[in-house]
């Protein structure tokens, strides 16, 4: 061949034909390696993406829950508080992500091996730390970084797997006492005895514990709030059948969540982030684990996808032993938390007793401390009123509100809330007030006071609060046209609230308080007289909106609270518009917050005005709400045609659920036989144009509480998921989301991998009412109804096939359910007799 005469295209053609034939040695060597692998039973892999059962094999009996994914849950929870919405979203996300993440082992050269293989090795190395004989001691440093932008108003927190008395992991949300703009360092120390499974883990700040969990061979110890809310080490003996976790790394490791094996599909989301040097000078590589493009997430509606943009974890893996030396969490481009592995070694005795004795607990930080005794507005401050900073003005107003509740006698507060005429139809229909009802346990129970109206329509609610400063008794009633639509009271021995009876008729129900019940610690906060004027975490979102004059001519100033831009805000824009805000009018004479104005989509949506604040001899209604006239109008023709407010919760009725829902709702024709009580909780779903989300919870005798969540958002998302499954991208999903039952009446049940936290997250929606900690490996199911809706079902434990089938077979539409009992009462009102608790 004459190379000199060869033009580029000839050369290109020639090169393409160039093939080197492998030597016989290479062929033999590769064949031998394959023979060896075959002898060793390398099975892989023929079913790479296998099934849910493969996941169970990957997490055998460990009750393991992915830790990286609860971080996502954390974000969801942060956005949505404890709402079912957030819980459900998080559960869904966990499920989806889990479908794509699983591990196997691998080997290779550190510098050249793929990020995926390296990450898997790091996970294996972490697990092997705990396989050493003796007591393994691990010391991590957790650095909470200063949070800015959207995160400045969110708490720094980490989801934790703690060991419960059954040997299963329970979900703990650890909040760090870190101010947004300041860093905070936490020491995280663990010891584990390989021979006995005993362990102790303590996280401390300045030597004081903020988190602790231990097992001493016979009991579980956890740092948790007691009945009075004081953090204490609680000791509980282990339950029958207790077994120590099979994967200690899942409980104590830096790679928790990845202690099993990761799905090959995860390779797309595990990438190389380059070489690095750890603080001790050792060479390392950084592996990036990103969730944003996980197919299950990318199949979701835009607002959810948006929350995961630019969010990832960076694992810095040490060259010398493939262990993770550092882990950094980045959300929306901001580095929030960094864990550094400072030391691992084998010791003779743990640094902290197995039973946590002698561990000092960090006292509540100022922001969490009980409220300071109310102070009257300071004299002389009035002169500075006009010049006072927004921050000082706000604090004076909050102090003034608190001071109302101090002293003696009965405080009487009267206010009016006007549902203003608005043009926007969604806003007109969707306005609501979040209410809180004090439950018998002393915990607040959420309720929603929906305030639907037609565009241009206006009506007003009257609100009265009476509070006995000496005894803590209180009564709160919200009325319209003289009829009570919301009420909550405490008479010294029982709490009272308006709830529907079996026929859906609203009436006052009294319940004796639990032994652990304590009267309101911060009545001004609970009764909500200052709205959100006292939210220190939103400090930067308050601004001066200028001077004002009240109708009587008295001077005032207005403080504006803009809605902080938080992850997930785009979900709410359909309802709230781009820049919803609140205006607080503060009166100069006494710093009273006399008006709160909610502005959404550029329209005044709700305005609350303080009418009177005075001390009276006796409350306007009995402390037990006896004699209040309860409005019992039942929604019967769909929400669009409703006029006036509707109280949904703390316990909603089947009639309400059936009437207000814009999709077909279901419930069990008969309560599950192992359960004792049912409660339907209703929440507004801001992601679905304020459709209603229903959490139907059944309290169980044996702890196997049942929760069924129904929401338009679920219907939309799971419908998309099903569509994805049916398409070319759905192979992985198809193999992992298995149809496990089809009922004779047309329901299908899809399993939601046990051990993924999906069930736990669904249960979280009803956690307070159930008064139970969701187990990490609770069973979770997706139900496809004949109507094409997708309720999510969870059980705090496990079900036999027969139990599951019986449950599904008993599902009936809410409307059919209502045909069985006697028909609900007609609209009207009735006077409550003094209810006996």
């Amino acid at each position, binding site marked *: 061949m004459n190379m000199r005469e060869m033009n580029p295209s000839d050369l290109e053609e020639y090169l393409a034909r160039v093939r080197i034939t492998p030597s016989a040695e290479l062929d033999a060597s590769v064949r031998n390696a394959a023979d060896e692998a075959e002898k060793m039973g390398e099975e*892989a*892999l023929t079913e790479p993406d296998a099934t849910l059962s493969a996941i169970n094999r990957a997490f055998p009996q460990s009750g393991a829950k992915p830790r990286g994914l609860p971080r996502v849950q954390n974000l969801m929870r942060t956005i949505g508080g404890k709402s079912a919405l957030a819980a459900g979203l998080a559960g869904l996300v966990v499920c989806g992500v889990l479908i794509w993440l699983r591990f196997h082992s691998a080997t290779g050269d550190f510098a050249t091996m793929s990020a995926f293989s390296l990450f898997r090795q790091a996970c294996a190395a972490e697990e092997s730390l705990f396989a050493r004989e003796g007591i393994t001691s691990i010391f991590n440093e957790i650095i909470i970084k200063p949070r800015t932008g959207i995160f400045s108003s969110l708490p720094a927190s980490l989801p934790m797997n703690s060991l419960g008395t059954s040997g299963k992991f329970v979900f703990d949300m650890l909040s760090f006492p870190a101010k947004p703009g300041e860093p905070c360092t936490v020491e995280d120390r663990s010891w584990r005895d390989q021979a006995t499974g005993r362990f102790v883990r303590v996280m401390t700040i300045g030597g004081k514990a903020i988190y602790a969990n231990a097992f001493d061979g016979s009991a579980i110890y956890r740092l948790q709030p007691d009945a009075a809310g004081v953090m204490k080490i609680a000791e509980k003996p282990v339950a029958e059948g207790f077994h120590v976790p099979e994967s200690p790394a899942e409980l104590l490791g830096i790679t928790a969540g990845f202690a099993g094996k990761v799905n090959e599909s995860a390779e797309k989301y595990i990438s190389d982030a380059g070489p690095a040097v750890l603080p001790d000078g050792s060479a390392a590589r950084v592996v990036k684990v990103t969730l944003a493009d996980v197919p299950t997430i990318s199949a979701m509606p835009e607002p959810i996808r948006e929350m995961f943009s630019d969010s990832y974890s960076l694992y810095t893996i040490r060259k010398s032993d493939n262990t993770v030396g550092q882990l950094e969490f980045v959300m929306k481009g901001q580095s929030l938390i960094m864990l550094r592995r400072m030391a691992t070694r084998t010791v003779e005795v743990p640094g902290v007793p197995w039973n946590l004795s002698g561990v000092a607990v960090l006292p509540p930080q100022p922001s969490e401390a009980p409220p300071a005794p109310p102070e009257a507005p300071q004299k002389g401050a009035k002169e500075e009123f006009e010049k006072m900073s927004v921050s000082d003005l706000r604090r004076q107003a909050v102090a003034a509100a608190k001071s109302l509740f101090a002293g003696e006698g009965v405080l009487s507060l009267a206010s009016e809330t006007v549902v203003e005429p608005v043009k926007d139809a969604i806003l007109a229909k969707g306005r609501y007030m979040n209410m809180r009802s004090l439950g018998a346990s002393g915990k607040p129970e959420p309720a929603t006071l929906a305030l639907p109206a037609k565009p241009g329509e206006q009506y007003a609610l009257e609100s009265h609060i009476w509070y006995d400063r000496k005894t803590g008794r209180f009564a709160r009633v919200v009325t319209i046209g003289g009829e009570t639509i919301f009420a909550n009271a405490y008479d010294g021995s029982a709490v009272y609230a308006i709830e529907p009876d079996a026929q859906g008729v609203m009436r006052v129900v009294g319940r004796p308080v639990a032994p652990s019940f304590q009267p309101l610690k911060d009545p001004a906060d609970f009764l909500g007289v200052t709205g959100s004027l006292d939210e220190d975490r939103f400090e930067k979102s308050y601004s001066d909106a200028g001077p004002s004059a009240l109708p009587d001519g008295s001077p005032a100033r207005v403080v504006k609270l803009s809605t902080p831009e938080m992850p997930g805000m785009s979900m709410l824009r359909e309802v709230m518009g781009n820049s919803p805000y609140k205006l607080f009018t503060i009166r100069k004479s006494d710093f009273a917050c006399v008006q709160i104005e909610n502005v959404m989509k550029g329209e005044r949506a709700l305005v609350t005005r303080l009418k009177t604040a005075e001390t009276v001899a006796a409350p306007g209604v009995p402390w037990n709400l006896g004699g209040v006239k309860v409005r019992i109008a039942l929604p019967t023709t769909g929400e669009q045609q409703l006029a006036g407010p509707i109280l949904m919760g703390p316990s909603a009725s089947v009639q309400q659920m059936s009437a207000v829902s814009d999709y077909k709702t279901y419930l069990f024709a008969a309560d599950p036989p192992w359960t004792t009580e049912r409660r339907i909780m209703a929440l507004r779903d801001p992601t679905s144009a304020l459709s209603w989300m229903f959490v139907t919870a059944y309290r169980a005798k044996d702890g196997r509480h049942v929760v069924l969540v129904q929401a338009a958002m679920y219907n939309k998302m799971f419908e998309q998921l099903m569509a994805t499954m049916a398409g070319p991208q759905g192979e992985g999903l198809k193999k992992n989301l298995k149809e496990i039952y089809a009922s004779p009446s047309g329901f299908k049940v899809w399993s939601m991998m046990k051990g993924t936290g999906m069930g736990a997250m669904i249960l979280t929606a009803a956690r307070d009412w159930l008064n139970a900690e969701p187990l990490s490996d609770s069973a979770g199911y997706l139900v496809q109804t004949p109507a094409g809706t997708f309720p999510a079902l969870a059980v705090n434990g496990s079900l036999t096939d027969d139990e599951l089938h019986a449950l599904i077979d008993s599902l009936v539409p809410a409307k059919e359910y209502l045909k069985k009992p006697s028909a609900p009462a007609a609209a009207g009102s009735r006077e409550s007799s003094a209810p006996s608790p």
Partner: protein
Amino acid sequence: LGQDSKPAWRAAFDGAYEAHKGRLLTLGMAITGDRSCAEDVVHDVFTTLLKETWRLGNASDLLPFLVVSVRNGALDLLRRRSRRQAREIEHTERLASSAADPPRLSAQAEEMERVLQQVSRLPEELKETLSLRTWGGRTFEEIAEIQQVTKSTAHARFNQALDQLRRGLAEENRP
């Protein structure tokens, strides 16, 4: 019968090796300029594949994985060994190889090896572009992604590589 008794993954593995070994070895050699080094790299890649046989289930992703693995392995080998070391090894191995396997390569095979050695002398980015395009079967778009450059740069590098290679081969053939 023997074939039938093999697990499915093994049959897929053997098929993949037979189908791609020549292309991968050529790619490895184009980058390293050293046949034995290239064989080492290819061996390592297939050994890794034995631990990740799930990859065999996705035919469309398999070849890109193998190509990128060989490319990474070859480049890493080069970085770890100085050229002098590589030459020493080559020399030693050639001696050993000659002693153990006296038959000579065919003239055509010799020429191909010579061309590949010439390729291996190109600047790294040109050599890589040419190799990935020619023996890796990668598109310019994919090469651009691998090299973190624009598509037009990848294209320009390919043309430059061809040009330099042509001149290098011509120079070598000059009497």
